[in-house]
């Protein structure tokens, strides 16, 4: 018996029963597509998230937030009391703080000529570039004099530049933020979308003094980031920072903090939770669909064995051994699911590309996902084919021919 010959014959037979074959493929197409999509989007998301975390939140960072405003947004409570002076006091009171940057923001329409765009306006210090690790890709950042003098200068994100200026060069141009005219002095490095889907290129950074005086008319800040010289000490600095801030806010022993302090450790925990979702639960859901696909394949194969009883009997009569029949059915199951798996990888990859470009996740590297998808569909295929193949091989030729 020539196995290659039988295999080729099986391929031709499957080709003749296109509907049956494609239905058998369908389960693994859907399952593997889901798996590929989830795994490759998960990988891209993780890369993006880690990059963002590293940028926003290096190991040597401490972030202080006003009470109520959480890392990820949340409602703003009325009693915001965090001020630039508080942070300055912390920085002066504690050794080992290299740099710090306060931040306050509003969302407001920005105009240039006829074009209008609602952007996030961030008020920051001249140290923003260093503290947030985001520079001006063109032009320049504002300096200390601009902050002290509340200069009406702005560094705008790429999205803002595109929306307001199209083909014009934004550098040196005037824009109106709310009712206040500003001069564009720089373009921010592109950043992409953060995990909440916020376009971080739709931002404008202005001196925090200008923002407070001209735009928001408040003297509080929403957050500040401190850079610590010794990354290992961020944990032990937390209670110190807390003590200084409580003192300055005159909080008595029983009162809760009106601020919160976030260090890299906490962020890593949050990242870990996200990773668990990305690489455990989501693929698990996809795997369930793959198993469901396998069950569908098995039942289709079983039905096909019943339908092809006479064919099996005939093959036995003309000399097929039980193992030839088993091989044929097993091969059919494996071939259809693996072919379906390959189609599923292509489909999942296409979906992942689409999703990634919508969510600005950057490049999709499909190799891990493809490997997982292909091995999963092979395993599912063989498992799905085993029972029908054994049943087909067990059929007694005289009964099958009846």
């Amino acid at each position: 018996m020539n196995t290659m010959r039988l295999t080729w014959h099986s391929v031709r037979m499957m080709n003749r029963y296109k509907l049956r074959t494609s239905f058998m493929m369908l389960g693994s197409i859907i399952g593997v597509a889901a798996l590929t999509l989830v795994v490759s989007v998960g990988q891209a998301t993780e890369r993006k998230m880690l990059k963002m975390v590293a940028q926003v939140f290096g190991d040597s960072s401490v972030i202080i937030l006003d009470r109520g405003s959480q890392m990820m947004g949340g409602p703003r409570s009325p009693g915001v009391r965090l001020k630039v002076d508080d942070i300055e006091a912390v920085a002066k009171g504690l050794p080992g703080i290299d740099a710090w940057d306060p931040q306050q923001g509003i969302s407001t329409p920005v105009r240039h000529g006829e074009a209008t765009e609602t952007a996030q306006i961030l008020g920051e210090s001249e140290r923003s570039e260093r503290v947030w690790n985001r520079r001006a890709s063109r032009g320049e950042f504002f300096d200390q004099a601009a902050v002290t003098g509340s200069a009406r200068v702005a560094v705008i994100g790429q999205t803002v530049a595109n929306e307001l200026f199209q083909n014009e060069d934004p550098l040196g141009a005037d824009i109106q933020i709310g009712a206040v005219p500003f001069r564009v002095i720089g373009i921010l490095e592109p950043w992409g979308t953060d995990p909440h889907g916020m376009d971080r290129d739709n931002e404008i950074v202005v001196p925090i003094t200008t923002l407070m005086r001209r735009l928001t008319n408040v003297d509080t800040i929403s957050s500040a980031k401190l850079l610590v010289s010794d990354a290992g000490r961020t944990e032990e600095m937390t209670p110190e920072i807390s003590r200084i801030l409580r003192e300055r806010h005159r909080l008595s022993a029983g009162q809760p903090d009106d601020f919160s302090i976030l260090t890299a450790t906490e962020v890593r925990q949050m990242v870990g939770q996200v990773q668990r979702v990305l690489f455990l639960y989501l693929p698990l859901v996809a795997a369930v669909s793959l198993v469901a696909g396998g069950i569908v394949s098995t039942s289709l194969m079983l039905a096909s064995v019943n339908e092809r009883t006479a064919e099996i009997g005939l093959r036995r009569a003309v000399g097929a051994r039980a193992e030839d029949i088993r091989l044929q059915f097993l091969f059919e199951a494996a071939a259809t699911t693996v072919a379906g798996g390959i189609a599923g990888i292509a489909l999942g990859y296409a979906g992942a590309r689409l999703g990634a470009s919508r969510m600005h996740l950057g490049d999709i590297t499909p190799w891990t996902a493809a490997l997982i998808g292909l091995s999963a569909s092979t395993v599912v295929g063989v498992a799905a084919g085993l029972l029908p193949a054994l049943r087909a091989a067990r059929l007694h030729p005289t009964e099958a021919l009846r």
Partner: protein
Amino acid sequence: MIELQGISKTYIRPTGGTVQALADISFHVKRGEFVAMVGSSGSGKSTLMNILGLLDLPTQGRYLLDGQDVSSLSVTDQARQRNKKIGFVFQTFHLLPRTTALENVELPLLYSDRASFEDLGRRALEAVGLADRVHHRPFELSGGQQQRVAIARALVNEPELLLADEPTGNLDRGSALEVMSIFQALNRAGRTIVLVTHDREIANHCHRIARIEAGLIVADERVAEPKDALQEAK
């Protein structure tokens, strides 16, 4: 060619108890003979056919095929022997649908240890007069033509023995005669053929008629003057 010595076959009923399908049958077929087995349904002729065709094993007795004892072959060896030595023709043709005549005919070659199919399939189709239907699929062929494809399939591996189980049962008289004339031609060329039928008319085309009743051969006689199917068809 075929030598059955004291063959019996007992089935165990699923409900318990046993059925004796064949009881102590001894029977010989010489090389080149054309034998008809007649009997009503339930007489045991199908069981006998299955044993002759190595699709089933006897409960007792010895079966010598071509001088070799095949009464207790393993299932795999049975398959090998079927492939080499026996060609089957069935009442319902058992052609694979959506598959050309040639591919249907080549099916036994698929399970043989031949290195290549050469043009064995084509030649077998020529032998049954279907050289011009090689790429037709079963639904494009008449009943008689389909059965001729099945005969070509039975012949393709050049077996010693042709076993035909009611080969004309699903055919009109004209097609039946056509099929019988092919069998007669094959027999004249030296092929040993055993044919099961319940139709006395068909049986009269053979050299010898064995009658089976209740698992026993009750009559075994030569046909003085076998009918010529080709003449009748004219």
